């Protein structure tokens, strides 16, 4: 288990990170400049925090001024965003780079085994520049994994790749990790879909702090704050003016709109939110709760869906409709409509 609690000032940026991670893939999600890379660098020992503690499986890697293990001592696997394969070495030499203090034939055996795992046996004498992005990624992974690390850090592993091959490479990466590694994996990304597919648990980072962590479904589907909602792509967040528990439901007032929510355990309610594809838009007034009249302000046509911006009183609501043809037929800018916020889809946010 990895236990991290570190602080670091970097120019005007403050990193103040605290989390535990268990074996399995933990996603670190956040906007650029939120401290994702700085966190990974601190864990690898490339960067020294100002204070705090890092423990990995009972080993203390860092403890304020007292202990600081160098990157060489930590046994970390680090997959850089650009893979950082040594351009002057062949695939085979790259993979073998981290092996030391063993006999030549044992070394070769291990390298062979890894070449096989990443299915690049026939490429072993090539230089990295002659490989595709996906192949480079696998070589970089093998180069890290061959040293049998305790902790694996993946820094935006797919950002350097073309969109159309990302999906299959995700599966490849997941497969190789599942087959060969049983420790803690941290995956930095800013792609929500990728995080959802790759990770077991997820933590959200904002301005150098962990703002939410937990099971991937909980975090991505139920953001706990306005910032978290922004990071996980929940587009509609409304500020709560007042709220009260009433029988089996919660009555929430946002700018004069009264929403009914299912009763749930909340201490404080600062915002309510809903995903743009959970909002329904109709020409008639529905009988469900939370149905308000609105006016279409703006329509954006996407490849797979239509995005509408609808004015509901003083609220501006984003609605995404996947059913293209119907949406196309139905709405024009300026149309009057009814907008329904299904009770079970509304998310309560404490911050």
């Amino acid at each position, binding site marked *: 288990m990895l236990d991290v609690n570190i602080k670091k000032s970097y120019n005007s940026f403050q990193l103040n990170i605290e989390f535990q991670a268990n074996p399995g893939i933990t996603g670190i999600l956040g906007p650029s400049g939120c401290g994702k890379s700085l966190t990974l660098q601190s864990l690898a020992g490339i960067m020294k925090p100002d204070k705090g503690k890092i423990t990995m499986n009972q080993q203390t890697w860092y403890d304020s001024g007292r202990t600081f293990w160098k*990157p060489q001592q930590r046994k970390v696997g*680090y997959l850089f965003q650009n893979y950082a394969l*040594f351009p*002057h070495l062949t695939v085979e030499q790259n993979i073998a*780079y*981290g092996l030391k203090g063993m006999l030549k034939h044992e070394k070769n055996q291990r390298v062979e085994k890894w070449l096989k795992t990443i299915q690049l046996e026939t490429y072993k004498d090539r230089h990295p520049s002659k490989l595709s992005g996906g192949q480079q990624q696998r070589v970089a992974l093998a*180069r*890290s994994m061959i*040293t049998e690390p305790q902790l694996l850090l993946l820094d935006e592993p797919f950002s350097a790749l073309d969109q159309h091959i990302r999906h299959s490479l995700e599966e490849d990466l997941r497969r190789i990790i599942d087959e060969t590694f049983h420790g803690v994996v941290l995956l930095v990304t800013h792609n929500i879909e990728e995080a959802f597919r790759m990770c077991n648990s997820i933590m959200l980072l904002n301005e150098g702090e962990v703002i939410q962590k937990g099971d991937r479904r909980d975090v991505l589907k139920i953001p706990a704050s306005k910032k978290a909602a922004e990071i996980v792509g929940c587009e509609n967040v409304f500020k709560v003016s007042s709220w009260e528990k009433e029988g089996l439901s919660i009555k929430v007032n946002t700018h004069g709109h009264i929403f009914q929510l299912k009763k749930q355990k909340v201490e404080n309610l600062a915002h309510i939110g809903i995903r743009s594809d959970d909002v329904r838009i109709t020409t008639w007034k529905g009988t469900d709760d939370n149905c308000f009249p609105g006016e279409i302000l703006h329509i954006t046509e996407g490849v797979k869906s239509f995005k509408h911006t609808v004015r509901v009183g003083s609220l501006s609501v984003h609605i995404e409709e996947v059913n293209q043809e119907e949406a196309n037929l139905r709405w024009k800018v300026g149309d009057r409509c009814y907008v329904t916020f299904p009770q079970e889809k509304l998310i309560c946010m404490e911050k």
Partner: protein
Amino acid sequence: MGEINLFPLFLSLRVSLTATILAIIIGLPIAYYLNRSKSRLSDIVDTIITLPIVLPPTVLGYYLLVLLGRNSPIGRFLEEYFGMTIVFTPTGAVIAALVVSIPFMIKSSKTAFASIQPEFIHSAEILGRTKLNIFFTIMMPLAWRGIVAGITLTFARALGDFGATLMIAGSIPNETMTMPIAIYDALLAGDRALANTLVLIMTFVSLTILYFINRLEKRVIQG
């Protein structure tokens, strides 16, 4: 025109080659240090190292004379304990050539080291290699072009030095008279034929050497 005395040519080659090798041995670690360090001291060192490029060689020669002459503390120390004199000896010529040429070695290698992506160094550290090991297995190969460019410039500058060498090593025929000085000497003596011959030899030899150093650069594995 009788036999041409080729001693100046061989002395020049010997001096500039020795100076270049010393420049590599001394210059690379300095370049490495300057690239890594962000302290004010390294800025000062960097500035001082650039000075020989800017100062006239005669000024440098003068400084060396003051610093290493037989009456200077260093000069006396060397003479007393090692029986070594610098002034008016080939050793002096080597030191003069080294001082005027080493800035080129340091500047080019420093730039080459700086252009290495930090991820390469970090990867190597994370993979468990020591700093020294990384220097030889990653930094040197990746900075190779810049280093070779530095070697070329260093050698060229060392071979061509006139002023600093003349100041400290003098122009004793068959002892410290290097090629550039011999050419000047021939010209002063009114021996145009000898001067022409020496100039042509010098040009031809320089071209040949530079060609081979350039070939060295091409041997870099394409990254």
